[in-house]
Each structure stands twice: as structure tokens, then as C-alpha cells.
């Protein structure tokens, strides 16, 4: 099963490699990983998406908790949560394609954030499935470049991860 794991970690040099090392050393899979500082600059929040049986995911959270720099770990998938990913996608948009591309972007609530003679760059957020769907909906031959951040997640309502 796919799990989305949130980690609060000390914002120290090397903390990221310690975490990614642990995954590779123990053969756990990482589908995506995002990290950035939080409102408290001494701490970063990381979101890891991993696929594995419940048993494997339990092992992953135990191993994460064992790392000295890790402050807290939560498997968001255990309860209600929201998941978002940002994608920037550059597509060929000459005179012929422009209108189609724009319409498709609107349907998916994407925004065109950069325009040139022959290209549109579209910004789109949503869960992974929505971004996949958008890519599918486009004429494949027009896609020039895609950049995805990987998922970030947060618990719903009063489910809060902080120290």
C-alpha cells in the first residue's frame, strides 16, 4: 500500500542524507520526498511517500524515529489527511494548440504562468492522481518538460504534527 509519512527533523546539515540513506541501506522504497524548513527555522518538515505492506511501513517509522535528528514521525495515511503536489509543465503551444491547452488547464484549475511564442508553462496543484490525469489529458506529443515536487501532506482538522 502507498503511505504518506510526515517527519519533523532538526534542520541540520546531513539530516536529509541520514534519512535517505536509511531508506536505501534497508531497501525501503521512496516514491517521493520533499523537504523544507517550517515556521520554526530550526526544524524542517519532510514528506516521504513510500509503498509497502503495513509491516514494512511500521519498520520504516521505527527506523525513522531511531534517527537522532528526527523529532517526530507520523504516518498520515492512518487517518484523514490532505495531500498536495505541485507540477510545472511546459507544453508546446503554437497558434494551433494554444486554445486547447488553455481550456484543458482551466478544466484542471491550472494556471498559465509563462508564455512564449511556442510554449505555455502551466502550474497545477493537486494530489498525484489529478496531476497524472492532467498529463494524460494533454496531447502527449506537446509535452516538453514536467517538474513535480512530490507530495506534501497534512492531517485534517485537529490532527496536528508539531513539537
Amino acid at each position, binding site marked *: 500500500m502507498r503511505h504518506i509519512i510526515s517527519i519533523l*527533523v*532538526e534542520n541540520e*546539515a*546531513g539530516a536529509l*542524507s*541520514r534519512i535517505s*540513506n536509511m531508506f536505501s*541501506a534497508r531497501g525501503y522504497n521512496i516514491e517521493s520526498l520533499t523537504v523544507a524548513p517550517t515556521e520554526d527555522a530550526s526544524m524542517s518538515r519532510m514528506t516521504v511517500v513510500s509503498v509497502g505492506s503495513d*509491516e514494512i511501513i*511500521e*519498520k520504516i517509522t*521505527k*527506523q525513522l*524515529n*531511531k534517527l*537522532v*535528528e*528526527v*523529532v517526530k514521525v507520523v504516518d498520515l495515511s492512518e487517518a484523514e489527511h490532505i495531500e498536495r503536489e505541485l507540477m510545472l509543465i511546459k507544453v508546446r503551444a503554437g497558434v494551433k494548440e494554444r486554445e486547447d491547452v488553455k481550456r484543458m488547464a482551466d478544466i484542471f484549475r491550472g494556471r498559465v504562468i509563462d508564455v512564449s511564442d511556442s510554449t505555455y508553462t502551466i502550474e497545477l496543484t493537486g494530489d498525484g492522481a489529478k496531476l497524472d490525469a492532467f498529463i494524460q489529458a494533454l496531447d502527449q506529443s506537446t509535452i516538453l518538460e514536467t517538474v513535480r515536487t512530490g507530495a506534501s501532506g497534512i492531517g485534517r482538522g485537529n490532527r496536528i504534527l508539531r*513539537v
Partner: protein
Amino acid sequence: MDRIKTEELSGAEIVIRCLQAEGVDVVFGYPGGAVLWIYDELFKQDKVRHVLVRHEQGAAHAADGYSRSSHKVGVCLVTSGPGLTNAVTGIATAYMDSIPMVIISGQVPTHAIGEDAFQECDTVGITRPCVKHNFLVRDVKDLAMTMKKAFHIATTGRPGPVLVDIPKDITVNKCEFVYPETVSMRSYNPVKKGHAGQIKKAVQLLLEAERPMIYSGGGVVLSNSSAQLIELVKRTGFPITNTLMGLGAYPATDEQFLGMLGMHGTYEANMAMQHCDVLIAIGARFDDRVIGNPAHFAQNPRKIIHIDIDPSSISKRVKVDVPIVGNIPDVLDDFLKLIKESKTKNIASWWKQIGEWRGKDCLKYDRKSKIIKPQFVLEKLYEVTGGDAFITSDVGQHQMWAAQFYKFEKPRRWINSGGLGTMGFGLPAAMGAQMANPGATVACVTGESSIQMCLQELSTCKQYRLPIKIINLNNKYMGMVRQWQQFFHGNRYSESYMDALPDFVKLAEGYGHSGLLIDKPADVEPALRETFKRKKDLVFLDFLTDQAENVYPMIPGGKGITEMILSEDL
């Protein structure tokens, strides 16, 4: 934060002051460019003693042996680049067996990091997978706190080695020195007490057990909770087995002790593990060399209680019913309080069954042999030392025979590399044990192949007058490898014969020690008696032993815990 003193000191001075503040009395190390200022400060004081090894692997193993034999932190000091990479085997060895150690490594100056500077290596990166934690100090102001954290992390929770990498410029830069008295880290708070509800549940299971079994490991030794373990065993009357790492935590001569379990464990211990109805694991991690194939182990369902301070040790290879995360002495104290008021079941028929298994006498060997049997040497070693020596070992058959035939009565007397299985560990670990226990009897049980891996340390032993007794069980083979080749590779002894062996007696003499070759069973005991009378000398005993002897019982890799190969003699 309380201040004990405030003055401007160089980083090098700070390192030494921190070691003094931590009560470190000996550091094992080897100098080099990046640590010259630290060595300079060592020179100027006499509280922290330095032992100069002959290879950095020896420094790490010696610090490790020092810790295992004393429950103090082992400290080693190495230079950047090759100094550190040489120490890595020793660090990984300590990591696998959860030994509290602090490793201080020199690093190229901060401004040169990342520029492929002379003797630069990514120490933090190289050691990351084999330390509990590591630090690169980037500012002299962080040095004291980092040292404090290193000792704190190494010794609390599940212990382990912690490395502090110090660039050369940091050892020169100055700042006010304040050694923090306490440290608190929001990201690191190991538990102590176990969950009361879980403990109650566990005790209930123990009280209802008809075929109970206690299985304890290195955690009991590491947490100094041998006394509580003995009380639990005595109060319940249950049978107990120890892992290789747990030997000595329960007195081996006691009748409730079933011997070591696992790949080379006793028949009775392995049978009881498989057929018990309630199993309590205490500071033991269900290693693959212990329970064999987990699927086979699961064929006989039993209720399992598991006490461990590291949640990641629990339900890793074997799913358990009652996990208890906590510090062993705290948890066992709670157990004992609850058990006091209650009675366990009558388990006479279980003991009868165990007695039958014991009747197999699975460690039997040919006592009339005209060639020296390695088992015989170890039995005599036990007798001659009264079971009271610190015994270190290398890795191989000799290690298993030592574990089977030397009856350890006290914890911290058996010092060996279990998790990593590092040949070369024995001699430097013995140096550490001797440094930590001056005047005590220390013997290193080794093989002709293992001893050659850190042989250079004979020179260190000479310099520091370490009267270690080396028990070389010389079968001219990498015996453990040969045994596997005999059993599983059609007797094809590929590269396991140790040709061109040195004359070990002359070799010992070359280093300024004495040596003795023993090739007759009748000479074994007299040689040992003479040797152990020599309290001041290192003596190298080269026993020519039966080349064809195998370690029994043996669970072949991938097999179940009861699928043991027993000696042909049985």
C-alpha cells in the same frame, strides 16, 4: 546551563578538557596531521592516558574491548583520511553489538573540505551507516556541546558508537570553554519505564505458562541487569538460555541454564525455544543466527513477550504478542514486584522433557583423542582460570567452542564480535580489557588465521606491558570456512587452508614476548598452568589442534531452529 569554568581555550584543549570532564582515563589512538594539536594537548597533561596502537583498527577494537569489559565509554582518536578509514571496521563492529564508544577523528581544515584536500575523506558520510550518530564540528563554539552530546548519545538508550569529526582549524581556534553539565535534545529521548499495562499482561502470561522459556541477550549485559535477570529466573524456576552476546549474564554452571542457543547452540536450548508455550525475550533481537528460519520458528505457535529499549528490534524478524519498550533493569524491577505476590504453575513435566533433551549430551567430543581437541583446550582453560578470566575471542570455530565450553559466571567476561563477526577483533579487544582491568586475567582465544589480522598489536602489548595470554587454536585452516565447505560445498576446500604459517613462537619472541608450542593433549593443562602463573608476561600459546574438528550442533543457514546437525559421535 551551569557553568563550571570560563576561559578562552583552543579547540584542541577543549577536546582534552571534555574527555577529562567525562572521566575518560584512557584513549586509544594513532596520530597524524589533522590531529597534531590534539596530540600536543594530550602531551601537556597526565589525566587522560593515551595508548598508541599499531593500526587504527586496533584503536577502535581496543576502545570497544575496554567498554565491553567495564561498562565505561571506550574512546579512540584517529587522524583524517586513512586513519579514519582504517578505523571503520572497528566502528562497524561496535555498532553491530551496540557498544558505547566515542570516536574522535581529525578532518582537513574547514576551508579545504570538499576540495579533495590531502588526507580528506567524507568521514561523516563513510561512517553514517555504522554509527549511532555522528557530527562534523564547524565552529569551535559548538565543540564542547557536541562532545557532551556524543557521550550522552553513546551511553543512553540503545548504546552505540558516536563519531565527532573535527577539522584542524577548529582545534586551533579559541573560545570560552564551558562544559555543559546536562544536555537535552527534543529529538532524542530514550524511554526508561515500560508500559505498566503491557508488563501486567506479560506477567499474567508467565504465571499461566506450562512450558515457559527465558531467552536473554546482549541487552542484559549492556544494561548491567544481570542481578534482576537472575532474580527473575530463580523466582520463577524457569529455564533460561543466552545468546552469544548474552553469555555470562546468567551463571553458566547453574542448573536452570540450558546453554547458548542458536546456530551453534545446545540441542536442549533450541528444542526448548521451539516447543515452549510462553517465550520471554529480554534484550535479544531474534537474530538470524539464533532462530534460524522464521517461518519454521512460527510453526509451533507460542506467546512471545519481548523487552527491548529499541522499538525497531521488536517484531523485526518475529512477530511478538506483548512488546515492552523500556530499559531492562526498570522493566524487570516492575516484573519482580508483580511476580512476588503470585505463584507460577508447576512445570515439572516441562523440566522432565528438557532433561531428556539434555540427555543427548550434544557437546560431546572424543576425549581420548591423541590429537589435541580444541574443546579440550577450552575446558582446561576454564578450569585453570577458575572461570574468572576476561576472555576475548576472534571469529571462527574457536569462537564457538569458547562460547560452548568456557562457563561464564559473570557478565562482561566474554568479549567477542557477534553481529559483524570481525576477525582481528580478539587481540586489540584484549588490550582494551586489560587496560580497563589492570591486574585481571585476560586471555584471547583465537585461530591462526584471525590472529594474523591484527597481529601488529603484539608490539602495543609490549610497550604497555599488557600480560595477555593468547590461546591460539591452530588448525591450519580457516576452520569455520572449511566446515561450511565440507558440509555444503562437497569438501572443496577453496582457499581455506592457511599455508606458509609463521612460527608463532618465534614471532612472539620477535616482539619481545614468549611463546610455546603445544602439540600433545597431555601438555595442554601443564602449559596453561605455567602460563597463567606468569602474571606479568604476555605468553603466546600455539596449540596444534585437530584440523578436521567441526562445531556441533549446527543449524545450516536457512534451516529451522530444531533442524540441527549433531556430531557423528552422537
